[in-house]
C-alpha cells in the first residue's frame, strides 16, 4: 500500500512540475499553429501530433494540466473558506441559526450538483474571454461546492465546543471571536485540510464534465475538460489513439488523488 501511495505522490508531483515548467517542456505553446502540419501524427517535434488547427497536442495537454491542476485547488480553497464560514457559524451559534443554515445546506446537497452547475454556467454570457471563462468556471465550482464540507465542519465545530478545554476556556471568560480564533479554528484545521484536499479531484472532474458539455474554459485556452471535449469526434479515436492522452492523464491524476485521499475520505 505504501508503494501505491509513493507512486501516486510521484504522479502528482511530476504532473505539477510539468505544469509549472510547461514553457520549457512544450516550447511550442498552446496556441501556436503549425499550419503545414495540421492533424499530423506523433513525431519528435510533436509527441502527440497536432490538432485540426495545427496546434501541438502535447503542449495543449501540458498547459491544460496547468489550468486544471492550479485552479482546482483555488476553487477548493474558496469552497473550504465558504464551508468554514457557513458550517462554523452554524456549529458555533447552534439553535435556530444552525437549523436554518443546515436546512439550506441540505437543500444544496439534495440538488444534483452538476445540474445546478450547468444551469448557472449556461446562463453566463457565451462570448467571454478565455481568461474570464476560466475564472468564472472555477469560481462557480468553488461557490457551489461548499455544502458537503459545511456539514462536516458544523459537526466538527459542535464537537469541539463541547470538549473540556473549550468549557475551561469559557469558564475563564474566553468567548466570541477569541474562542473562535484561539480554540475553534486550530481544532478544525485537520477537518478543513481534509475537505480542501477532497474537493480538488471533485472540481477537476466537474470542470472536465463542464468542458465536455461545452460549458467549460473557452478556446484557445486549454484545460483538461476542454481537451476531453475533443473526444466527441470518436470516429478518429481508433486510427489516432494518441488523442486519448488527455483522458488517460485525467484518470491517472484523479486516481492518484483517490489513492492519496482514501483514508481522509473515510475519516471525513
Amino acid at each position: 500500500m505504501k508503494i501505491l501511495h509513493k507512486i501516486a505522490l510521484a504522479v502528482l508531483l511530476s504532473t505539477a512540475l510539468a505544469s509549472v515548467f510547461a514553457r520549457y517542456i512544450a516550447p511550442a505553446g498552446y496556441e501556436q499553429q503549425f499550419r503545414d502540419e495540421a492533424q499530423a501524427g506523433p513525431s519528435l517535434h510533436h509527441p502527440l501530433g497536432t490538432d485540426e488547427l495545427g496546434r501541438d497536442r502535447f503542449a495543449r495537454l501540458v498547459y491544460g494540466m496547468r489550468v486544471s491542476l492550479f485552479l482546482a485547488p483555488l476553487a477548493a480553497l474558496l469552497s473550504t473558506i465558504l464551508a468554514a464560514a457557513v458550517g462554523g457559524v452554524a456549529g458555533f451559534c447552534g439553535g435556530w441559526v444552525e437549523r436554518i443554515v443546515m436546512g439550506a445546506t441540505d437543500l444544496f446537497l439534495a440538488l444534483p450538483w452538476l445540474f445546478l452547475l450547468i444551469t448557472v454556467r449556461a446562463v453566463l454570457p457565451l462570448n467571454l474571454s478565455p481568461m474570464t471563462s476560466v475564472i468564472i468556471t472555477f469560481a462557480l465550482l468553488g461557490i457551489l461546492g461548499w455544502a458537503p464540507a459545511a456539514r462536516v465542519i458544523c459537526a466538527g465545530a459542535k464537537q469541539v465546543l463541547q470538549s473540556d478545554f473549550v468549557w475551561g476556556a469559557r469558564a475563564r471568560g474566553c468567548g466570541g471571536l477569541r474562542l473562535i480564533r484561539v480554540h475553534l479554528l486550530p481544532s478544525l484545521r485537520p477537518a478543513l485540510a481534509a475537505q480542501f484536499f477532497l474537493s480538488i479531484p471533485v472540481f477537476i472532474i466537474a470542470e472536465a464534465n463542464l468542458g465536455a458539455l461545452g460549458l467549460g474554459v473557452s478556446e484557445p485556452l486549454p484545460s483538461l475538460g476542454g481537451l476531453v471535449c475533443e473526444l466527441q469526434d470518436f470516429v478518429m479515436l481508433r486510427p489516432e489513439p494518441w488523442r486519448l492522452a488527455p483522458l488517460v492523464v485525467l484518470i491517472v491524476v484523479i486516481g492518484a488523488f483517490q489513492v492519496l485521499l482514501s483514508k481522509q475520505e473515510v475519516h471525513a
Partner: protein
Amino acid sequence: MLRSLSLALLRFVVLVLVAGLAGATLVRVAPGFSSDEQELTPGLSSESIQAIRQARLADGNIPRFYLHYLNGLLHGNLGRSQSLNQPVRDLLRDRLPVSLRSLGFALLLAWSFGLAFAVGAFRVRSRWLVMAADSSGGALISTPAAVLALVFLMMRWPPVLAVGLLVFPKIYRYTRNLIEECLEMPHIVVARAKGVGPWRLLSWHVVPSAIPQLIALVGVSISMGLGALLPVEVFCDLPGIGQLAWTAAQSRDLPLLVNLTLVVSCLTIGAIMCCDQLRRVVGRAAA
C-alpha cells in the same frame, strides 16, 4: 407519528419552494440573463428585438415572476417553454417517465453490483477480489460522466448502464466501509469470537446494524443518479429531463428551468425525506 409526518411534509413543501425560488434567482442574477441569442437573428427588425428585450425584462422581476408562476402551478398551469414553444406540462409528461425509468434501472444495477461486491469482499476475503473491485471503482470515480457516456455511445452499449456504473463505486465503497465498521462493534466481535459463521454474522448482526445507514444511502443515491443521468442523456440522446435541462440551460429558458429545478428538487428532497422517515422507523423497531 402523525405530527412527525406533517412536519416532514411541511419541511418538504418549504424546501421545494425555496429550491424553485433559488433556481429562478440564480438564473436571474447571472450576468448573461439579459442577453438572448434570438437577438442575433439577422432578419429581425428593431421592433422585434425591442419586443424580445421587453419580454425578458418582464421575467426579470423575480418575486413577481415566481408568485405568478406559483399561482399558475396551483391551477395546473406550469407555463410555456420559450425555447421549445410547448407547454411545460406536456414536456415533463413526455420526458419524466424516460428519466425515471433510466434512473430506476441504473440504481437497481448500481445497488446490485455495489452490494454484491461489498458482501463478496467481506465473505470471500480474497485480496484479488478486493483489489479488482477497488481499482474498477477507482477508475469509474476518476472518469467524468460525460466521457463514460461517450464511451457507451461509441460502443453502442445501453446508456443506463453508464449511469449505473457511475453510481456503483460510491455504493460499493460506502457499503464496504460500513460493513468493516460494523465488524468492529463489540457485540459482533463477541459473535465472531464465539464462532458464528459469516452468513449468519452478516444476516443476524451486520445487516440490522447497517440497515438504517443503507436506507439513508438509497436517498442520496437518487440524487447521485440524477446528476450522472444529465450528461449521459445529453450525449446518448436520451429524451429525458436531463437533456431537457441542458436544452433549457443553453437557451436560457427561465420557465422551463424553474420547473425542472422544482421537479428535480421534489424527486431528490422527497426521496431523501422518505428514506429518512423509513430509517427512523427501522431504527426505532431495531431498538
